[in-house]
């Protein structure tokens, strides 16, 4: 099919979004073409505004509107505890639990030798410096429970060992609401490892 040039350009641009292939890109493009002009402008404006107004916190790497993020700026939060996550969106998910009141450290990735991401690319020395400079007492590692996330967690634990602070890994358990018989053996064996006493 021969696209008119502006449509081809739009589809090509939309294809750059994660998880969007040519077919979805085409669907999105036609959606935009059918929209009133004002709506297309407001969509485009929202993208530019988000890009212009949001930044990453220089201390913890979370999404921030000004220099420092709302977590680092919040004097009510526990400054002795830092939770390490892979992506800024993981911070938002943890915040939703309403249970965690410490600070964060966002890695913006995980160790992935196949993609050329090593300890230097994740700037892991920055985390070590942060621990050394502040009185942090516990690091909770909340990277993804998969090979990359586990390897990253292990590597970070090794880096922090000489600093003799408490390093913990979030527990892995069974998904809430499921039946045990449907759990895969790896999840089940790690749920056993992470068992706790009922008090």
């Amino acid at each position: 099919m021969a696209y008119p040039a502006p449509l081809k350009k739009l589809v090509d641009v939309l294809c750059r979004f994660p998880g969007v292939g040519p077919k979805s890109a085409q669907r999105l493009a036609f959606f935009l073409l059918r929209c009133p002009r004002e709506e297309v402008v407001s969509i485009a404006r929202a993208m530019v505004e988000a890009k212009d107004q949001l930044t990453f916190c220089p201390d913890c790497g979370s999404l921030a509107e000004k220099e420092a993020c709302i977590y680092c700026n919040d004097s009510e939060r526990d400054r002795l505890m830092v939770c390490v996550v892979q992506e800024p969106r993981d911070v938002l998910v943890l915040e939703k639990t309403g249970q965690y009141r410490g600070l964060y450290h966002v890695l913006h990735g995980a160790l992935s030798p196949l993609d050329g991401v090593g300890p230097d690319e994740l700037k892991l020395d920055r985390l070590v410096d942060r621990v050394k400079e502040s009185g942090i007492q516990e690091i909770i590692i909340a990277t993804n429970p998969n090979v990359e996330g586990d390897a990253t967690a292990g590597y970070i634990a090794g880096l922090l060992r000489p600093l003799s602070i408490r390093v913990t890994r979030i527990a892995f358990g069974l998904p809430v609401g499921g039946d045990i018989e449907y759990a895969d053996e790896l999840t089940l064996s790690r749920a056993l490892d992470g068992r706790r006493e009922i008090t």
Partner: protein
Amino acid sequence: MSQRMFKADGLVLRTRPLGEADRLVTLLTGEEGKFEAVAKGARKMKSKLAAGVDIFSYGHYTFHRGKTWPVITSQDSIEQFTWFRDNPQLYPYGIYMGELVDRLVSGEEPCTSTFNLLLEGWRLLGSCDDSYIICRSFELKLAHLAGYSPHFHSCSACGTAGASKFSPRQGGMLCTHCASADVISIDKGTIAIVERLISAPLSQAHLIRLSAGQKKTLSRLTSAFLAYHLDLGDIKSRTLLKEYNT
């Protein structure tokens, strides 16, 4: 390969996210060679498939032939390699072995020897404390399976015996007269070690003791030899092996 359903035992070489919640998994099997398959929903927390389609998995898989890729319909774990949890230094070694195999096996032809070599390599990483030497032996054996082995007996240009320079480009020795600028000096002891690393079982590689000088020569030789003969280009995980271990 014409039925709609098929089964294979495979090793997961790599995975990448696909669409909203799926994973595209690169599998190495003995009988069906290397191919990509889709694990639907494998990025969701509640996916039963997720654990068995991550890298370093060894399992029985069943597939349904899809439009673009086979779709994994079930997975039963045979072995999970988890040494990288206790020893994060082993992680880039395991990844590197998988990446070498991924680059070397091009498609869906049977590759039982390569499959067995990788399976043994991944097993040994967990049971053996010298991952460096296992990795060098693995590289040389893999090159050997691909039809390339260094020749050490005489100068490959003029035939003179007792040559002492190895030319990665020639894949063999050169005497002092024929040597070009990129040769690596290698003594008889190190030649014997390289030959043993190719011919002895992988499980015995750790019995070989290397001096610091021999280790350096071996690293240079394998790296240059692989680069010239296997046409692998830039191997990202090999660069990271160095970063991890300094």
